């Protein structure tokens, strides 16, 4: 149990350091002094009470919560601090958050075993108990200190908003006043956690802690790191996956003012300069000759053609129940559809970047760090260090959507190779320009799905077969052994193999092409980013064939799944399902559609209202969402995440497509790969199902139902079921 380990560590510190416990000299403990987005800079007071790895209380009353998870936009820092502060009974105004150093012994993701990292919408879910206990332990020790100081029974002491008090004796002290004595209290072994009805922060309107610095330019991202003597590197990458450098001429690059060096690395040719613009000009002036003899030269159309062929043959079985063949043999009606999903780039607003400094005792990394343990091992391997000699400053990430949790430490290793190529003589900031970011791969994989449904003579949905074709994300990743079972990558079929509907005969099988070397990666909601679309829009096609209402059919099939059914009912009610939509202007077609999906143990239903113009362009007017994520630690942040998830999903549905032509990525910037803009954003209503269940994730689960709800609304408006993403207005022209 991690909390116990942390407490043991404290015992060790207490025993060995005595009164010096918690003495930190700013400058000597960079990682410990890391503020949010300010790793290595936060000055801290002289004396602290540090009951465990997640909490430090200063004599100035500052309560510092140490976040083991990355803040990449999802409100993680605020949420984690809320959990701990709740049990500590801290004054929220005095709470600050600090990014944890890389140390999997203390800061592992409890859902990932021995690895530290952020992803899979796990931050709140895996930290819930851990941080409640960390807060409760701190509170108990403060109470112990007060009881000792005032010679009163601990049971009579109250704690509220950072103040410890004893009513009978009228004693009162702040956390800061008790910090020194609290540090000497025995570590509690029997922790009493609050009854949820007594929560004062959890479930309430707590404001984000990062709003202030993110609205005045002070929040620090990797892009903003400046170190003494640091060089900026911009890299010429190969034009196709698998190509390598044959030769290069650095002459013109080196003549650019500010350019200091040009080095070859396995990923291409790096130009190092004193500033970013010089490095970019130098990179653009390079002439590189590429060896493309082993390069991948297929285009997206050819990949898709292969996948369609593969889909004609059985794949590896991911799920089978009942006797699907018999159900189809007896069917009165069979409905079929196939779907194409493109590669998608994450395209976080902050393109990938990383700062590395090599020193005598190891290396230091500044990064929007999402995969500490993997990156530590990768860098240790390259530099010949021990993993613990790789220290990482976890800065704010300017978005990630999965990209910074690099399964192969790709951009981190690229920065490291550059540092190595110059023998570590200067710290290096690797900066990817937007085009580098968009063309470097690690995309949501291209997928082809084929579905068929059997309806029997009595009008019952008796069979469902779902075949998927697409590359494996988990293959070659640190999670491969746990996430690939009998050749089936579980995230390729998540959302499909666990279809919640009561269909007696179900088969899901998968082809995983091994000969496509395009790098692929988890992309916000991972497998559900495509499986929710195919299953939820196909179900609407089936409903149409059965002559049933989409909500009614789902309710019928979800009788055994109350949390799915609960969000479906709530979203349908709030959206006014069944009431007539206000008609559009002449020539406009309007429709309403629904989708429900569980991902990361969170249940979301969304109802879309759309208007389709005569030319086939789609305007999403309104999205009504219902969410069951257990206890909503921060309801306003749950709403914000679902609002953002809807926008993120619509970007992909309306516009998102990375295409290869003869192996080259055709898009390079936001003109070719246009994310959603403000005028395309619908109104979004988010309704939260009240719950006492433990919290589950909210960063991703709002994504999967959005595109299918919109597609189902489009079908309601036009009669056309869109099976290829992104939507093509030409398919919808009147």
């Amino acid at each position, binding site marked *: 149990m991690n909390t116990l380990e942390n407490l043991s560590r404290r015992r060790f510190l207490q025993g060995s350091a005595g009164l010096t416990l918690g003495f930190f000299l700013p400058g000597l403990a960079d990682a410990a002094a890391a503020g949010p987005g300010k790793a290595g800079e936060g000055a801290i007071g002289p004396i602290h009470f540090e009951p465990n790895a997640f909490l430090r209380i200063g004599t100035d009353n500052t309560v510092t919560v140490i976040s083991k998870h990355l803040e990449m936009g999802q409100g993680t820092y605020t949420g984690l601090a809320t959990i701990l502060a709740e049990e500590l009974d801290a004054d929220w105004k005095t709470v600050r958050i600090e990014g944890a150093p890389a140390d999997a012994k203390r800061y592992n993701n409890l859902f990932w075993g021995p690895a530290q990292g952020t992803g899979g919408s796990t931050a709140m879910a895996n930290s819930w108990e851990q941080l409640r206990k960390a807060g409760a332990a701190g509170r108990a020790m403060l109470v112990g200190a007060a009881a000792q100081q005032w010679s009163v029974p601990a049971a009579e002491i109250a704690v509220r908003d950072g103040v410890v008090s004893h009513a009978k004796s009228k004693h009162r002290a702040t956390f800061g006043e008790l910090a020194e004595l609290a540090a000497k209290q025995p570590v509690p072994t029997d922790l009493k956690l609050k009854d949820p009805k007594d929560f004062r922060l959890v479930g309430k309107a707590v*404001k984000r802690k*990062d709003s202030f610095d993110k609205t005045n*330019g*002070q929040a*620090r991202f990797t892009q903003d790191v400046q170190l003494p003597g640091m060089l900026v590197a911009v890299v010429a990458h190969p034009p196709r996956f698998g190509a390598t450098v044959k030769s290069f001429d650095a002459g013109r690059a080196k003549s650019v003012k500010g350019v200091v060096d040009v080095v070859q690395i396995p990923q291409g040719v790096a130009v190092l300069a004193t500033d970013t613009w010089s490095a970019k000009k130098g990179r653009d002036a390079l002439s590189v000759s590429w060896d493309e003899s082993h390069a991948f030269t297929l285009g997206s159309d050819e990949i898709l053609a292969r996948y369609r062929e593969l889909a004609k043959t059985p794949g590896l079985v991911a799920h089978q129940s009942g006797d699907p063949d018999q159900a189809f043999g007896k069917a009165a009606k069979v409905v079929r559809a196939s779907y194409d999903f493109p590669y998608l780039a994450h395209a976080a607003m902050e393109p990938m970047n990383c700062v590395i400094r090599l020193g005598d005792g190891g290396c230091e990394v500044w990064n929007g760090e999402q995969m500490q343990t993997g990156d530590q091992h990768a860098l240790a391997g390259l530099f010949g260090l021990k993993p613990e000699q790789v220290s990482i400053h976890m800065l704010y990430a300017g*978005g990630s959507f999965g990209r910074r949790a690099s399964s192969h430490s790709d951009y981190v290793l690229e920065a490291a190779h550059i540092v190595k190529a110059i023998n570590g003589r200067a710290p290096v900031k690797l900066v990817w320009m937007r085009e580098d970011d968009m063309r470097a791969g690690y995309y949501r994989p291209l997928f082809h799905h084929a579905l068929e449904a059997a309806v029997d003579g009595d009008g019952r949905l008796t069979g469902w077969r779902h075949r998927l074709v697409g590359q494996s994300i988990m293959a070659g990743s640190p999670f491969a052994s746990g996430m690939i079972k009998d050749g089936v990558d579980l995230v390729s079929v998540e959302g499909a193999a666990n279809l919640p509907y009561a269909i007696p005969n179900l088969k899901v099988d998968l082809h995983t092409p091994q000969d496509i070397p395009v790098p692929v990666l988890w992309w916000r909601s991972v497998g559900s980013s495509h499986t929710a679309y195919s299953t939820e829009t196909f179900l609407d096609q089936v409903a149409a064939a059965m002559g049933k209402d989409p909500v009614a059919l789902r309710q019928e099939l979800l009788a055994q799944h109350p949390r799915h059914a609960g969000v479906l009912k709530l979203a349908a009610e709030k959206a006014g399902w069944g009431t007539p939509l206000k008609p559009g202007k002449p020539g406009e077609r309007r429709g309403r559609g629904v989708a429900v999906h569980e991902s990361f143990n969170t249940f979301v239903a969304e109802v879309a209202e759309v208007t389709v113009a005569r030319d086939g362009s789609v305007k999403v007017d309104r999205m009504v969402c219902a969410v069951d994520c257990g206890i909503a630690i921060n309801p306003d942040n749950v709403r914000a995440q679902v609002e953002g998830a809807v926008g993120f999903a619509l970007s992909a549905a309306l516009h998102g497509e990375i295409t290869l032509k003869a192996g080259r990525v055709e898009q390079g910037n*936001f003109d070719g790969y246009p994310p959603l*803009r403000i005028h395309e954003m619908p109104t979004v209503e988010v309704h939260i199902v009240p719950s006492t269940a433990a919290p589950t994730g909210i960063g991703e689960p709002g994504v999967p139902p959005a595109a299918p709800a919109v597609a189902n609304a489009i079908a309601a408006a036009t009669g056309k079921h869109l099976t290829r993403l992104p939507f093509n207005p030409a398919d919808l022209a009147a």
Partner: protein
Amino acid sequence: MIQLNVNGNLQQLDVAPDTPLLWALRDTLQLTGTKYGCGEALCGACTVLVDGSPMRSCSVPVSAVAGRKVTTIEAVDKQRIGKVVQAAWRKLDVVQCGYCQSGQIMSAVALLSQNRKPSDTDIDNAMSGNLCRCATYVRIRAAIHEAAKALV
């Protein structure tokens, strides 16, 4: 040497004249609140005010703004509208990852400087050049309306 007036301070910069204002601000003046997102004036993350008008600093050579008044996010609170916009952003917790928000705020300040009571369409027109991959658009819109109310 190029002379710039940034946030009310006169600065002498020893940079190539074709250097985009963005990189002069970030790398030379250490004003890193203005962000790089695309380098092609497609995303708006680098938006600053030049003589009060929004400009994509990634696509303006530093020589083109010599002698003109440049305002960046670091000094936006020195003017009333900037302060009010910042306060609205904080009140509604607009930010998520935060990377695009400097640019969003500068564009919003420019809009409200010209139009104290923008409609949704005005907001669409003024803000559609600013991308947000976290899609905080619902709250950006609400915060601009909120700021407009506070400015009355």
